[in-house]
């Protein structure tokens, strides 16, 4: 009803009988209308611009808000952002963001300045922590007046109808795309209502709906959105990821705790989580006792936005004269052959070998992640490894740690500090 009243009022005003009506109207109701009249200097346009959504019903006629008159006099551009500042005095969260959007929607029936408001809202979204919330995006799209921007005839359809508004809506969708938010049915309904069927925002929506599902699951090593909070769980997850072996067993060598000694001094014991696969164990068991093994690291691993560091126990590559092929005794297993050397009739097409010398590197024996990267902590890991790998008691272990994180590659041992490293080698017993 109220809407109808305003509609009638607008018509009256445009005809020019405003003097009569002026008196029996509250000022707050009239202000937006007056603006409308002076901007649209035409008799008919005012009728067009008051379409109201019936679908979501968030569009309501302007209420008699005590602040309203104050706000409408303030014409500076900053007002839009000020709205967010005002609602977020206590806390910047989803509720205060939605409240700001609600206040804007209820302020003016024509939603004057909604494009500026939407741009400001998009900018404020990460601040309020709602940048991945599809409902909030729909709420923002709902700010657009409905059915006004839908082209009605072929000429409007041919030319870019209301380009600023369409660009603005595309901007909303693009931000959704950037944060990986998949639009839903409601988004589609809103876009249909606001811009019509073949508009640019609708096309953008269709593109999103085409490409998002296609690329949703292409990562062969998926990382969960919410990583575990517990560092031990996180370490387990990342170690299993880099080990690339389902047989590999994760061992928690130490949980983080604080030990208070008798003298009242507290010692921090960081967590140590290691991983080793049976293959790595047997590799280590066959390692030459005279050659040292190295603890290297920390190396970086990215899990989406989180960076974790791991350490590697490895050996140098054997010089070619020491490498020997292990010959398996054919009688070692009577039930099935341990080694097959059948010259299968391989077709020319089956040969998928590359004609290249592959990169050869020393074997990796185990990996670990620890709460602290100092030598004492990692020595505890080696002690823990000795239980399952008794040979490690005879092999000298050299710690080649860098103070900061480093690349896998920079483990090139420059020969000049080699002696120094060897001197700090620990023969752990």
């Amino acid at each position, binding site marked *: 009803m109220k809407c109808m009243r305003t509609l009638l009022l607008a018509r009256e005003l445009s005809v020019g009988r405003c003097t009569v009506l002026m008196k029996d109207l509250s000022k707050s109701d009239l202000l937006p209308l007056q603006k409308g009249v002076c901007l649209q200097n035409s008799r008919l346009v005012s009728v067009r611009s008051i379409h109201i959504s019936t679908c979501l019903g968030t569009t309501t006629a302007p209420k008699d808000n005590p602040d309203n008159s104050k706000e409408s006099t303030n014409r500076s551009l900053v007002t839009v952002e000020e709205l967010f500042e005002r609602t977020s005095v206590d806390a910047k969260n989803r509720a205060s963001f939605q409240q700001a959007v609600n206040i804007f929607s209820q302020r003016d029936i024509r939603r004057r300045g909604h494009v500026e408001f939407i741009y400001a809202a998009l900018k404020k979204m990460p601040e309020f922590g709602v940048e991945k919330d599809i409902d909030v995006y729909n709420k923002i799209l709902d700010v657009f007046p409905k059915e006004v921007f839908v082209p009605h005839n072929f000429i409007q359809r041919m030319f870019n109808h209301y380009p600023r508004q369409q660009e603005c809506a595309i901007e909303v969708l693009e931000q959704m795309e950037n944060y990986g938010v998949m639009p839903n049915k409601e988004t589609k309904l809103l876009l249909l209502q606001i811009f019509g069927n073949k508009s640019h925002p609708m096309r953008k929506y269709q593109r999103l709906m085409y490409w998002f599902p296609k690329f949703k699951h*292409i990562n062969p*090593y998926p990382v969960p959105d919410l990583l575990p909070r517990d560092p031990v769980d996180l370490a387990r997850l990342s170690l299993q*990821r*880099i080990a690339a072996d389902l047989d590999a067993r994760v061992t928690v060598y130490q949980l983080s705790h604080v030990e208070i000694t008798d003298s009242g001094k507290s010692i921090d014991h960081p967590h140590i989580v290691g991983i080793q696969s049976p293959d790595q164990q047997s590799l280590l068991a066959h390692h030459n006792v005279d050659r040292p093994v190295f603890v290297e690291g920390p190396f970086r691993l990215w899990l989406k936005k989180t960076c974790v560091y791991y350490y*590697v126990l490895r050996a140098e590559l054997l010089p070619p004269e020491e490498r020997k092929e292990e010959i398996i005794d054919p009688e070692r297993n009577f039930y099935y052959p341990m080694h097959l050397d059948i010259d299968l009739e391989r077709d020319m*097409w089956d040969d*998928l070998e*590359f004609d*290249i010398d592959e990169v050869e590197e020393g074997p990796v024996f185990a990996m670990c992640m620890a709460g602290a990267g100092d030598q004492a902590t990692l020595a505890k890991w080696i002690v823990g490894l000795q239980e399952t790998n008794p040979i490690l008691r005879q092999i000298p272990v050299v710690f080649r740690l860098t103070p900061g994180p480093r690349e896998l*590659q920079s483990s090139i041992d420059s020969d000049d500090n080699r002696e120094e490293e060897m001197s700090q080698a620990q023969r752990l017993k």
Partner: protein
Amino acid sequence: MPLLRKVLDNVYFLKKWHCQNGLFSLFRPLVGCNLKWHSNYKRPGTPPDKTPPWKKIHFSFQKGIEGIKTHFGKLSKEIVDHVKGPEGRPLLDYMLSQTTVIWEFRSEEDLKNWVISSDAEIGGKSEVNLKLGKNNQSAVLFGTLNTTVPRDGETRYSGYCSMRSKPRLVAFDRKNPYDWSNFNILHLRVRGDGRPWMINIYTDPYFSHQKDDLYSYFMFTRGGPYWEEIKIPFSKFFFSSRGRIQDHQHELWLDKISTLGFTVGDKVDGPFQLEIDYIGLIKDRAHTEECAYELYDRNPKK
């Protein structure tokens, strides 16, 4: 897909190639003309370059003589290769090859075939470096990604680093794009640190409006101390132009491949690293897909 947009502007550095197959290339050895190799991107706010074109020519007799030597050397090699067969290999060998290595990284010479770039070109703060790895066995691409947007009022996204091969040139700097139509799978042996990368393939444009076209797909690295072999069918590559995925997808035509590039731009600030052993191609007869992206009617009749 969101990676795509902000990332790709760096890779259009070959816009000046149109003039080069004309008569000009014959004078190239004598006239050391510094072509703008990397990009014709102009940062907002910078004044236009008003140096007259003749001042950009640095005539040097010494350089000219060297140029003539190298280019005629290349020419004779080209002729010999042409006589031998396609790509300098016997025809049968060429046609029956199942795999081939396109790029490997075993010496500094191999690194010279690659160009690295980062958003420092557009005013960003990322850094990227390329060097040879341990024992000269691989290439290491490392650096820091920084998504701080340059404050020039126009740029909206920032934060990418990339590495891209140079197009193959034969004598007198004529371009000679790769013909990979015998193969259908890209094979890479890499070791990363868990970050996703994008692989961009640039085909040699026939019309000038195709010069910004790019075919891309994603490469996910596992991280960790092990090497991994990644196979990407060419049918998976999607078509984009000027950083926007196009509605009309078509298969990647492999007969004129100009360059291949790697880009990181996952919006995460911090260091990154990628080691590449080699980049090769495989012919897999079991893979018959041509284009992985189906098309729909733009205005369906219902």
